[in-house]
């Protein structure tokens, strides 16, 4: 856990000060690096399996079922049935364990470290109304060395990080001087501090290094229209915020700002009320609808179909773009994971958690029965597919799952 911190604390000031801008170019891929990108999507509060499960092994979608909005992408999907979490249980455990499998770094951040070193952003973690309860075990899915990664919930701010900087050499020089100065101050302040406080400042140095890369790195991005006209913190503007974040994530993946993007739609125990569907109950309340209460069940299924349609939006966007390096659809060059944190929301268990994979050159178009497998094995498989050398993930010991390849 301390390896990267330690490395950076030794070389911190020098790294921040070094002109590593020249390194920030999308590298030619080594022969064994498939050069894939990763997009992780999240939606909360489990599912109702009898309304979710598609027909298989060749995918088909019953009318009115939760995944039906993805029918147009059936050939691009790999739907996982029967997946259990290694450790997590209940809302909180499920959210924490989902992408970490009990480890201190989540799948998205682990991949970002491996693939993102030479991009402006190692990863972009975007959120849709994830922070009203602050950052806690219910509201965060991305972790790095045990620390939560805060999603950027503001599309306009994301846009300005991606596109907002005008070319101005003297501005760049001033910012470099300030960053160099701050790195020296942080380094100096560490002397005489207790160890825990030194680690805090090492994190801060790391963060400045990320700021520098984002400011001075290069990519092939040209500005899209800036997202405007809605309030990202207003429940009723959840749809606009979702759409904007998904579009920004795809744009950033397409133009090489980052190889890893995540869009976390709300969080576990989500209180979002889909007023745009006419709902008067929050999503978490609906996720506890009684089987014999058809109106509430229907409302929950509607809500889940709405989330599926957001995933569809992402797949549409990726399918419509061409990867400049290979000429393939960007969807074929981007591994997509739609993760959830619970199986049946009413039982609060992490069994049969309904994950969906898409694109990325996987062998798609299938429903896969994973009964008996845990999510660390799926994550190990995905790491390997992305060119990483992991043989297990988190606290798991399972190797890759051949059935997914």
């Amino acid at each position, binding site marked *: 856990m301390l390896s990267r911190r330690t490395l950076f604390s030794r070389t911190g000031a020098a790294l921040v000060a070094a002109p590593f801008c020249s390194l920030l170019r999308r590298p030619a891929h080594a022969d064994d690096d498939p050069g894939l990108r990763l997009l992780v999507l999240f939606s909360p509060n489990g599912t109702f399996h009898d309304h979710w499960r598609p027909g298989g092994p060749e995918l088909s979608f019953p009318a009115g079922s939760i995944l039906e909005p993805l029918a147009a992408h059936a050939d691009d999907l790999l739907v996982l049935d029967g997946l259990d979490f290694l450790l997590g249980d*209940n809302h909180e455990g499920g959210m924490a364990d989902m992408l970490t499998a009990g480890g201190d770094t989540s799948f998205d951040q682990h991949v970002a470290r491996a693939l993102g070193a030479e991009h402006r952003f190692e990863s972009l973690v975007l959120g849709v109304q994830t922070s009203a309860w602050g950052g806690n075990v219910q509201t965060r899915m991305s972790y790095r060395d045990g620390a939560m990664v805060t999603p950027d919930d503001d599309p306009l701010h994301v846009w300005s990080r991606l596109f907002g900087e005008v070319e101005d050499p003297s501005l760049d020089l001033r910012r470099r001087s300030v960053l160099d100065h701050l790195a020296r101050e942080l380094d100096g302040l560490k002397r005489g501090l207790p160890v825990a406080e030194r680690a805090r400042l090492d994190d801060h140095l790391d963060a400045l290094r990320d700021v520098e890369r984002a400011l001075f790195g290069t990519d092939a991005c040209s500005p899209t229209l800036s997202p405007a006209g809605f309030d990202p913190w207003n429940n009723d503007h959840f749809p606009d915020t979702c759409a904007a974040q998904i579009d920004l994530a795809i744009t950033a993946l397409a133009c090489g700002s980052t190889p890893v993007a995540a869009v976390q739609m709300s969080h576990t125990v989500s209180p979002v009320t889909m007023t745009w569907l006419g709902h008067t109950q929050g999503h978490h309340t609906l996720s506890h609808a009684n089987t014999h209460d058809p109106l509430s069940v229907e409302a929950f299924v509607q809500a889940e179909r709405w989330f599926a349609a957001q995933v569809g939006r992402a797949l549409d966007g990726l399918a419509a773009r061409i990867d400049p390096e290979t000429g393939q659809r960007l969807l074929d060059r981007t591994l997509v994971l739609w993760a959830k944190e619970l199986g049946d929301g009413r039982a609060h268990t*992490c069994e049969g958690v309904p994950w969906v994979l898409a694109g990325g050159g996987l062998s798609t178009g299938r429903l896969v029965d994973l009964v008996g497998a845990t999510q660390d094995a799926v994550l190990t498989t995905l790491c390997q597919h992305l060119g990483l050398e992991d043989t297990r993930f988190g606290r798991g010991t399972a190797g890759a799952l051949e059935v997914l390849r």
Partner: protein
Amino acid sequence: MTRLSAALALAALACAEVADPSERQQDTFDTGVMDDIESCPPAPLPRRLRRLSHREYRHAMADLFDVDVAMYGSLAADPTVDGFDNDAEALRVGALLADQYRSLAEAVALSADLSPWRDCSLEDPDCLDATISALARSVWRRPLNAEEHDELTTLAVELTLGGTREHGLRWMLAALLQSPHFLYRSEVGIEDSDGIYILDDWEKATALSFQIWGTTPDEALLDAAATGRLRTDDGLAQELERMLEDPRVDAHLTDLVEAWLHLGQLDTVSRIDLTQEARADLRAGIRERVQAMTDGTPSDLLRAGLLVDPALLTTHGVPEGSGPVQRGVMVRELLLCEPLPPPPSGIDTSAPEVDPSQTTRQQVDQHASDPACAACHEHIDPLGFAFEHYDQLGHWRDHDHGLPIDDSGHLDGTPFEGAQGLALLLASDPRLGTCYLQTARRWLRGRPTCTETTPELPLQAPLRELDWSRQ
């Protein structure tokens, strides 16, 4: 003088806490249950850097430069620990926040009115020196040493880059505002004896200011530090007296009550028929009512109607209807400081079928008939039923689904009628004052603390608890 004796009598109440960071890390994965408050003996606080909470940062920027930084952009939500967003151990600077600090610092530095620190012409070389010294003392809450002064002067000249000296000075200010010396409150101290450290004068001034006002020290307080007055009992008493009479105390205590009752969530909860304007009005209304009562005790707040304040009831509830479970949890966890575990996994938690011929209470009462539910809900629902006459906006309703409302309940066996009845019971319950004190200490110190059962103290009392020693 009575205030000082109170302060000294209450000093050194801080508790030993596990300093092992690996154990602290676990906190981010736990269920949010509060630390056991009974078992921690008094001990000096750890030597630490406290990153400014977002609230403290906004207040400091407002006091220094008369700006509302919210106009320039947002700040990434911090981790919450035990429900608090100012836990010193958890507050770190990640990539997103560092970039937000950068853009806010640039925006403020390039537009701020610098006249309070500069009364000379920058053409005069001494003027740059003097202005840098003055600015840094205000922003960093301490004077510069010679080496720092040289470095910042060099930086200001380097940043001129063909522009005016003023430009260089403003960019240097952007660096001051992103500096760890501004963003972290130092509680590192100087060694006093065998491994025990005490805060230096400037650290004391900073600790006093953030504890009593929730913001950066003013010039008078910095002057008191500069002249060594905070080292003498009389000087300290004088300063405390002055600070406690400042209106900033009332705003700060109102922030504390807001944090206690999770009122910040009012800005984002989803409630049917709640407009954006109404949210703002509700928040402003409860702030005004609390702010008028900061000389009182927690019970005084309850007797004055805090429990049925529409802002509180809107914050804690459901999108439509009353929400007895949510409101019961609010009373149990926030007012009594008795944390509840989350519903266990593996049991069927599906809600009963909505039956329009039943009241909310009748439906929620099904918890009582299922032992798996009753184990926890018997501590929740009988409190929450007090609010059955109030809908999701805290508006009075005579009927529920057209049926008469029963708002009787009991607090651990003692019966009451309605919200007013519950308020009176809570107001005479020693757990309320103890819970407030525990919450206030947690919030003021940014870490778990021990709290023995105490007679009820005024809201202001925790502000006077001072402790300068560190280990």
